[in-house]
């Protein structure tokens, strides 16, 4: 059974919150007419795309005896399990049992299928538990839907728990230290006072005494999918267009792994937009990558019990707030079926 509502709070906290959308993999990971096996929220899934582009996401588990459907055959509009040939439609309905025509499995919806949507080059899926199969309302991040904003997606896979990856984003102060040797975050005070400012969709965690110099603020946004928005100044070499922003999302893959999605975006038009895109592809993408690698190296090296033996201070308020939020939701979700 996938995403059971009887999962413990610890399990949910470790493998990702239910009853909301999460990013899974970039859209181009599943070609038209292709399939791809993925892990998300600690479970195995199959992404299946018809040749006309229509995408579906199924539990990677044959309804007959549990073989992975991802080892099966793409039949265009359905998948056939390799083991005994049972055929499953994109909505999870068994369309045929070739070994026993007329078998009672036929016509039954026996495979979990998750609602999916594609946003700015990423596949998002709704992970409801048994009690909440209907998808929550999803408002995609506006920097990714605003036509005046241009964005590039960077996706990477980290051997780090999903929450550490999100906490890293709610911890702007690391920019002035971890990223001190970088193309964008070399500047800014190494001391700061922070505050939390509530918004209708989440909260800001921001410096009270500096803005527009380093990684000085971040907004956690909960709009059906959890994402962060932040802004970092570019050096003059990046040309006209002002700072770049990041929309960040994290896929909880399993207890120890996460997929990170970073859209680097900039509000630019005309030749300035073209110039940024040209420089980004040619030179800047590599530098952004080098910054991200600093995060990966640090997070992957964190001990498994890092969050059990801490001594936090004022800069960690954003992280504390995040944990409280997620922990409370994990508790609620674990008792939803009780």
């Amino acid at each position, binding site marked *: 059974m996938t995403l059971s509502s009887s999962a413990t709070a610890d399990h949910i906290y470790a493998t990702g919150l239910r009853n909301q959308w999460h990013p899974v993999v970039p859209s*181009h*990971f599943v*070609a038209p007419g292709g399939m*791809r*096996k993925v892990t998300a929220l600690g479970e195995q899934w199959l992404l299946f795309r018809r040749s006309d582009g229509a995408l579906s996401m199924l539990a990677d588990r044959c309804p007959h005896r549990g073989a992975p459907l991802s080892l099966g055959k793409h039949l265009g509009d359905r998948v056939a399990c390799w083991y005994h040939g049972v055929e499953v439609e994109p909505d999870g309905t068994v369309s045929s049992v070739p070994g026993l025509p007329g078998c009672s499995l036929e016509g039954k919806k026996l495979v979990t299928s998750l609602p999916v949507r594609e946003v700015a080059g990423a596949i998002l899926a709704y992970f409801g538990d048994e009690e909440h199969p209907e998808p929550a309302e999803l408002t995609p991040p506006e920097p990714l839907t605003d036509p005046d904003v241009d964005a*590039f*997606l*960077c*996706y*990477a*896979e*980290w*051997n780090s728990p999903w929450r550490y990856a999100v906490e890293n984003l709610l911890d702007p102060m690391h920019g002035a230290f971890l990223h001190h040797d970088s193309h964008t975050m070399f500047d800014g005070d190494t001391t700061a006072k922070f505050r939390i400012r509530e918004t209708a969709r989440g909260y800001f965690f921001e410096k009270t005494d500096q803005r527009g110099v380093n990684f000085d603020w971040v907004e956690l946004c909960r709009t059906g999918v959890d994402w962060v928005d932040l802004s970092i100044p570019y*050096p*003059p*070499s*990046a*040309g*006209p267009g002002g700072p770049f922003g990041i929309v960040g999302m994290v896929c909880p893959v399993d207890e120890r*792994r996460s997929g990170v999605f970073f859209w680097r975006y900039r509000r630019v038009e*005309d*030749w*300035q*937009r*073209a*110039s*940024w*895109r*040209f*420089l*980004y*592809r*040619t*030179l800047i*993408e*590599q530098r952004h*990558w080098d910054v991200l690698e600093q995060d*990966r190296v640090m997070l992957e090296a964190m001990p498994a019990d890092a969050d059990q033996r801490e001594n936090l201070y004022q800069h960690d308020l954003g992280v504390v707030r995040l944990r409280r939020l997620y922990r409370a939701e994990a508790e609620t979700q674990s008792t939803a079926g009780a």
Partner: protein
Amino acid sequence: MTDTWPYLDVHQSRTHEPTPYEYKLAATLEEVYTREGHELADVVRGLNARQVHASDGSPWTEESFRAEMNRLGA
């Protein structure tokens, strides 16, 4: 496309490995932005002063620079 974990690919935005001409133009453009500013006229003058010309060898005009950026940054 690889199925192996982890996926760590530096370049996800490129359509091709940049040519030597593109690398040179990009590097010079960064220098011009840093030293001459961000106005189109200054950028064109800065590139021409550095003798970094269009791929056909002719000096840049605002129109030709704009067109080339739109091609390379599409």
